[in-house]
């Protein structure tokens, strides 16, 4: 049983999903807050942009990322001039792609949670001398906890399950960009069904466990 490449792929996948989720929680919070509170006309445009990965084929997203991040793309130029090289076919590139691709799965539950809180608790907090920032940490975050739980689990699980974007932008480099889903694809292409089973069954078990945990912890929360 060639276990080593499997372990490497699993570790890489977990690292990617963990980092992506962390970044998304940090970026997603202000984005979700803004989307939940603004009356600006650009709200629907930004909301649509965030939700785009829900409907776009991953290969499309991956293709454009490849082009823009590549050596001749605008962002590729920028990263090269900063001495960072180009992002495609690196772990960094995978993180960028995953962040974009999993964005709606994190932003939307948080946004829903913020919207469900409404205006009143914020006003109450203000009349009890809490500044807006204080209110955010002492009232909004605790009340939005179910939303954050859903967002974390969905963002993490969705990043683990992604394939198209990863293949387009990350390629298939062992230890650097070869995540579990790509590894399974490799095995199937090589007709190594036994190895594919190991990983595929693991994915099924993992996904099921995550969802059961989510539903049990958060029985009334929204899912996506």
């Amino acid at each position: 049983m060639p276990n080593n490449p499997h372990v490497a792929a699993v570790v890489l996948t977990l690292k990617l999903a963990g980092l992506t989720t962390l970044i998304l929680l940090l970026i997603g919070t202000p984005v979700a807050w803004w989307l939940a509170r603004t009356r600006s006309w650009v709200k629907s445009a930004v909301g649509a942009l965030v939700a785009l990965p829900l409907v776009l084929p991953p290969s499309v997203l991956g293709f454009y990322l490849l082009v823009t991040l590549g050596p001749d793309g605008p962002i590729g130029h920028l990263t090269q001039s900063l001495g960072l090289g180009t992002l495609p076919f690196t772990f960094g590139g995978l993180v960028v792609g995953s962040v974009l691709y999993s964005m709606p799965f994190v932003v939307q539950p948080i946004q829903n949670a913020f919207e469900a809180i409404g205006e009143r608790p914020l006003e109450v907090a203000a009349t009890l001398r809490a500044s807006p920032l204080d209110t955010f940490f002492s009232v909004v975050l605790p009340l939005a906890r179910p939303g954050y739980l859903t967002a974390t689990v969905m963002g993490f699980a969705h990043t683990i399950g992604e394939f198209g974007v990863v293949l387009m932008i990350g390629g298939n480099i062992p230890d650097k960009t070869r995540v579990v889903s790509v590894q399974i694809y490799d095995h199937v292409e090589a007709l190594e069904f036994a190895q594919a089973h190991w990983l595929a069954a693991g994915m099924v078990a993992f996904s099921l466990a995550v969802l059961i945990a989510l539903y049990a912890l958060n029985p009334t929360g929204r899912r996506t």
Partner: protein
Amino acid sequence: MNATAQVAAQVRARFSVTYAPFALNCDLQLPGRGVSALFGPSGSGKTTALRVIAGLEHASHAYIEVNGTVWQDDERGIFVPPHRRAIGYVFQEASLFAHLDVRGNLEYGMRRIPQDGRRVSLAQAVALLDIGHLQQRKPATLSGGERQRVAIARALATSPGILLMDEPLAALDIKRKAEIMPYLERLRDELDIPMLYVSHAPDEITRLADHLVLLEAGSVVASGAVAQLLTRLDLDIAHGDAASALISGVIVAQDDEFQLSCAQFNGGALWLPQQSATVGKSVRIRIQARDVSLSLAPQRDTSILNILPVTIIGLSEDAAGQVMVALDAGGTPLLSRITRKSAVAMQLRPGAAIHAQIKGVAILR
């Protein structure tokens, strides 16, 4: 309400708010102590006025000053955000924080007040609202009345310079209202915190308010001492079935044999159903206009105990066939509603000295 408190007006609020088609224009000058009530039908702008004073609504061209502190002055570009205003705000729905227990809710505001600014202790707020036994409970497990008491205590625990109450009883049923009212009276009587109380229920006004502001369709119709406004014939509030006068008196004697108490006020004395109150205690008495009849000469052969010499101030048409008569009993205003037929037969006119027979009195405290 005494005259000095009115002169030393300590709440100034001048502002306009426009949410087409609704426009609210106010210029309020309210006493810096006691309970001032904002009264009017729904949509008259009461709640908006309160929100402007709290800073929750950003009015234009506003000047808000409370107890010598300017909270908003658009001419000088001053707008103090709500969390820096020394207010206690009680919303119509208790709006407790669902993620905190009662204790956590009570401490939320208090912890944000510097130590030397804490004039109302948590223990005092808890005792005043009688919620000591609820402290470990989550808001969801409380009754509507209990929730509102916690919300009031939570606002008090911030040691506010003014307590703003937005129809705190409106979301409760009659039983719960009756449960909370005594606590509100206690706040008024035991704390030296001015209250601004929004309501559309006349009985809350007569029980609580010292000063009354009548709002209608976004503007102030009248503002003054509650006993005066309730009996002003040019105002709607002095007409109809619920029209009544308020008398402030002091218990001066107890008659244990007949189970009566005697209350002295400016215009004389009234016999009341016996009060547990001791001699010397002040009482607020409501006399409904429909419980007062008039006679030209004092009646002797009558079962009515309370007969007061009064002077007619004015007469005004009321409901069909009815006349509302404004009376003065030694400086205390009264109302009497009689038939127009009687008014004509008795040739009642302003200035005439007659007698008022009071069939019923309600003691409000």
